[in-house]
């Protein structure tokens, strides 16, 4: 971020496109950049990962994204907070359906342990390096990932093992 490299028309942070969403800063790292960007941001003061969640864009693939970001079915969204400077930022990582794996933030932000498990549980996105990637809200033997858009709502047979109806 030195002065000479600053180009106002193509904003980027650590080589990732940046957009503004209702006054909120959003960074779009690729899957490869994700962990490095999170580390670099942590060094800049974004030391708290408040939240991590997934979004399944199956029915909304043509959403607006900055140039150079290829839309994929899944997104992992991370909310970062800088307590010292009182600012927030957001990471949106594109995760393809064919290989739904991203790096885990656990070693950097241990507070993402439960949210990453929840995202795995609800979307089937796997977090590489997570110490205990198991279902957290749904029963262990549940089939499917409920927050996926192709997971039907309505009358679903009860999947509990003990249910004998």
């Amino acid at each position, binding site marked *: 971020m030195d002065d000479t490299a600053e180009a106002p028309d193509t904003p980027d942070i650590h080589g990732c496109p940046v957009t503004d*969403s*209702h*006054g*909120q800063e*959003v960074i779009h790292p690729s899957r490869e950049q994700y962990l490095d960007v999170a580390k670099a941001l942590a060094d800049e003061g974004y*030391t*708290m*990962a*408040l*939240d991590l*969640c997934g*979004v*399944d*864009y199956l*029915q*909304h693939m043509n*959403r*607006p994204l900055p140039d150079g970001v290829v839309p994929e079915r899944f997104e992992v*969204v991370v*909310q970062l907070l800088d*307590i010292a400077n*009182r600012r*927030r930022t*957001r990471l949106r990582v594109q995760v393809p359906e064919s290989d739904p794996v991203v790096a885990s933030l*656990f*070693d950097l*932000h*241990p*507070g*993402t*342990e*439960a*949210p990453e498990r*929840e995202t795995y549980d*609800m979307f089937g996105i796997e977090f590489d390096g997570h*110490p205990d990637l*198991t*279902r*957290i*809200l*749904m*029963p*262990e*033997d549940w*089939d499917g990932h*409920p*927050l996926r858009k192709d997971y*039907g*709502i309505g009358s*679903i*047979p009860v*999947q*509990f*093992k003990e249910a*004998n109806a």
Partner: protein
Amino acid sequence: MSTTEEEVTEVAIDEPDVATSEAEPSSYAVFIPNTDEGAQLLKPRSQTTARELMREVGSVLRMSEAEAAQLGDLPEDPEEDQTMIINMGPQHPSTHGVLRLMLEMQGEEVLRCKPIIGYLHTGMEKTAESLTYMQGGTNVTRMDYLSPFNNELVFSMATEALLGITDEIPERAVWIRMLMSELNRMSSHLLFMATNGMDLGAVSMMIYGWREREEVLRFFQEVTGLRMNHNYIRPGGVAADLPAGWRDGVLRLLELIPPRLDEYDILMTGQPIWRERLQGVGVITPNEALALGATGPIVRSTGVPWDLRRDMPYMKYDEMEFDVIVGSYGDAFDRYAIRLAEIRESMKIVRQILEAMPEGDYRIQDKKVTPPPRARIDESMEALIHHFKIFTEGFKVPEGEVYVGIESPRGEVGCYIASDGSPTPYRMHMRDASFTNIQCLPHMMRGGLVADAVAVISSVDPVLGGVDR
């Protein structure tokens, strides 16, 4: 549809097998793998090396395994036959609903602990995708059911940010929202006083806490018609204006509660038994709390003065005079004292709101967002159309995504909404404070006594409705 049918047949085929295998006489050990929790179970000591334990501690303190091992306060890795794993909950009365903890004990000492959640999961985030933005409030208010106004508020603020009407919300609506969320903070903390007392054996405190909370809820009922799950704060403003005589109702609360809080001080704060029971129990350091994403009274108990109302003000909190209460030891007593003092601070804010409350509209006069008054429907065709559109289809929210976080009684409650331009959220995610805060439990409990586990759970004040959503 074909996949669901396949699932049906699969289940139908599997079921008899499971039934026969379990009908056979089997030892207890054989039975365990068939429980639904499966891999969520705490692993036996032989499968969990000290190295893994150090990795857990080390990553929270942001240091290497070797450095974590140098700390020396890690529990000794004992022989497996000296430890046992016991379940606490989900029906244990001190687990505040349906939290289940697996505790690895060595005698009375807790070595490891694993919270197991999900017993109250009803898929509310999935439900939110089929409710319009106006119906959404009924859903989110049931998540963290002890702070319904804060949930409604954060959902409404996120919707308003997407609509781009954040600055157009009438003044009176903003002040009413602040009044209700501060009273909500009081009612939530009063309930904490009650449950904390009950968990530690101060049973009379339970009755007192519920009694005072009921007074606040009575005021909520006057304003919204309901004691809980109000759906009062809605996108665009609030559902109804404050009723006649609301000011007397608030003044009555402000008169009634302070002497009761002084009674709490006599009953608990200064009392040696109470202090012995809480001081030095469930200690967490600022580094641990921040790394684990803890917010609210937990992070403030460690001495970090982080309160969104002051540090990232929303609504009119920048005009309010109040103190952010911090602790210094990060123990259960600090968390108790912080909540008690926060009730007093909230009353301070409520007094200022009473003085500042302006006259005016209580909801935005935007026909696309606010349904017309009943009387207008009889005389205006346009009003009838708007009414019909809002109640059948809902109002459309422009494409985009937004995250809004506010300070609820338990910490930061956040709402992330992704909209595809339709009248229902494409995805709505609530960042619930309790969900993240219970990650602190293993770190608070390590090395403590099992009797203190109750005090530690209580001091985190989790609401399982919010945790499981």
